[in-house]
């Protein structure tokens, strides 16, 4: 076969830079053995702390981690949060560099690489950030600081691996479990926040009221009579027996107008008022009951821990 001298071109430089970014970022990526068959990926985020995805950890005991040099050792689960799909493991003296996070969000169209380690070898897939938007809520109510949707192929080991830019800086942790299998990245700010709380408490505290709601329109005549500024509200369609709202006198059929002085038009508006700092702190609720507006004082409780997967 014919061979040829190498040429220095922009195309070759791009190729070399991508490979260098993969090599550099790959030194902080481990394989996590916490399920059957294919291992998942994890990122050495802080010294001795590995960030992974919740949905790829199917057991809480006997978890092992394979390092980039191929050695495997035990790791302990420090905490997990199904609502952000993040989990944190502790590893004694891994002797690895930590990831270099990039705090600012990428722009749509930015060239990115998703890395994984589904076993001993590092894997990569490339593409672009397809959509960047403001904060959003997962279906379990957790707030994610920035929406980062990706246009790239998902292979084994995608979840729990980092999304990196061409300079090997980490833009977040990848998961396929928060958007019906579509590739998505949990941004650095969210990861930092969740990791800190999981290391402190092992779980993410979330306040809850024990109500189910549904969007409803207040009839115009009633809205006029009650002098409401908007006709959008939430109908209480379920009240958990013995739950915080039940204890504080919320009734099935109440129409919720405001929580903590802010109008609620969507069930996510209720979740937005129920952060971890709200547990045990009274919150005012304005409701329509029997054609009259009433104000109730509610004391949110702490959301019970979900059953382990």
């Amino acid at each position: 076969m014919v061979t040829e001298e190498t040429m220095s071109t922009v195309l070759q430089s791009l190729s070399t830079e991508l490979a260098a970014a993969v090599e550099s970022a790959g030194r902080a990526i481990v394989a996590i053995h916490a399920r059957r068959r294919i291992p998942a990926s994890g990122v050495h985020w802080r010294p001795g702390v590995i960030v992974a995805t919740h949905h790829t950890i199917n057991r809480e005991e006997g978890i092992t981690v394979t390092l980039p040099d191929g050695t495997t050792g035990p790791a302990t689960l420090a905490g997990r949060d199904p609502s952000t799909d993040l989990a944190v493991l502790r590893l004694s003296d891994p002797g690895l560099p930590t990831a270099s996070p990039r705090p600012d969000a990428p722009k749509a169209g930015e060239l990115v690489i998703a890395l994984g380690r589904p076993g001993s070898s590092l894997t990569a897939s490339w593409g672009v950030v397809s959509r960047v938007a403001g904060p959003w809520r997962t279906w379990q109510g957790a707030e994610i600081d920035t929406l980062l949707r990706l246009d790239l192929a998902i292979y084994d080991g995608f979840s729990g691996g980092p999304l990196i830019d061409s300079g090997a800086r980490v833009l977040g942790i990848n998961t396929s479990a928060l958007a019906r299998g579509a590739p998505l990245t949990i941004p650095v700010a969210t990861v930092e926040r969740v990791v800190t709380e999981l290391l402190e408490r092992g779980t993410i505290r979330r306040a809850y009221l024990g109500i189910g709601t549904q969007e409803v329109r207040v009839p115009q005549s009633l809205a006029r009579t009650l002098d409401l500024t908007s006709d959008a509200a939430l109908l209480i369609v379920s009240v958990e027996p013995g739950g915080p709202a039940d204890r504080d006198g919320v009734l099935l059929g109440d129409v919720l107008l405001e929580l903590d002085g802010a109008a609620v038009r969507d069930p996510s508006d209720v979740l937005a008022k129920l952060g971890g700092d709200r547990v045990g702190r009274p919150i005012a609720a304005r409701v329509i009951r029997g054609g009259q507006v009433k104000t109730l004082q509610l004391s949110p409780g702490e959301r019970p821990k979900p059953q382990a997967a």
Partner: protein
Amino acid sequence: MSAPITARLARELAAVVDRLRRATVQVRTRGAGMGAGVLWRAGDGSRALVITNAHVVRGNRTTIELSDGTVASARAVARDPKRDLAALEFAADRDLPYAVGRESPPLEVGELVIALGHPGGLVGAATLGIIHAASERDGRTPRWIQADVRLAPGFSGGPLADAQGRLIGINTMVRGGLALAVPAATIDAWLRGSRALVSS
């Protein structure tokens, strides 16, 4: 707004794809659809070979078409169904734009790759991707090069090349969305060890 880097990138990519396209042929076998093949200079260069996948060639005779439109009859001179490789020989009356190989360095995860083929009869289509996983372990040639590049039927037997258009493998199959290519080193070793090729 000018984008000098992007413009240079586009120009260079077009040039690399153009060179690669000249080294890629169409392989047509009745009843087997169309595949791709790579012009390969064997040994002293006295014989014109096309390397393709065994699954692209049915029987011993096939028709190939070069990128300049030249149509030639080719004969299968070696075949290895296990590695999914076939070598075709044809009479060439001039020097051909043979594929250029890459001897070194070893492939790195993340480096750019270009695949060429004829998906759905679209002749000479190119697609760009990266190396998905390290292909070399302990200096041994692996069974497959794994690439994150989108292939379709019609890419079979065609070249997978690096950022400079140097041949690194022959695209052979897609598994779980991942492109698998037979490494060029495997083909080299296979051709050298192929008795059928030597005796014919």
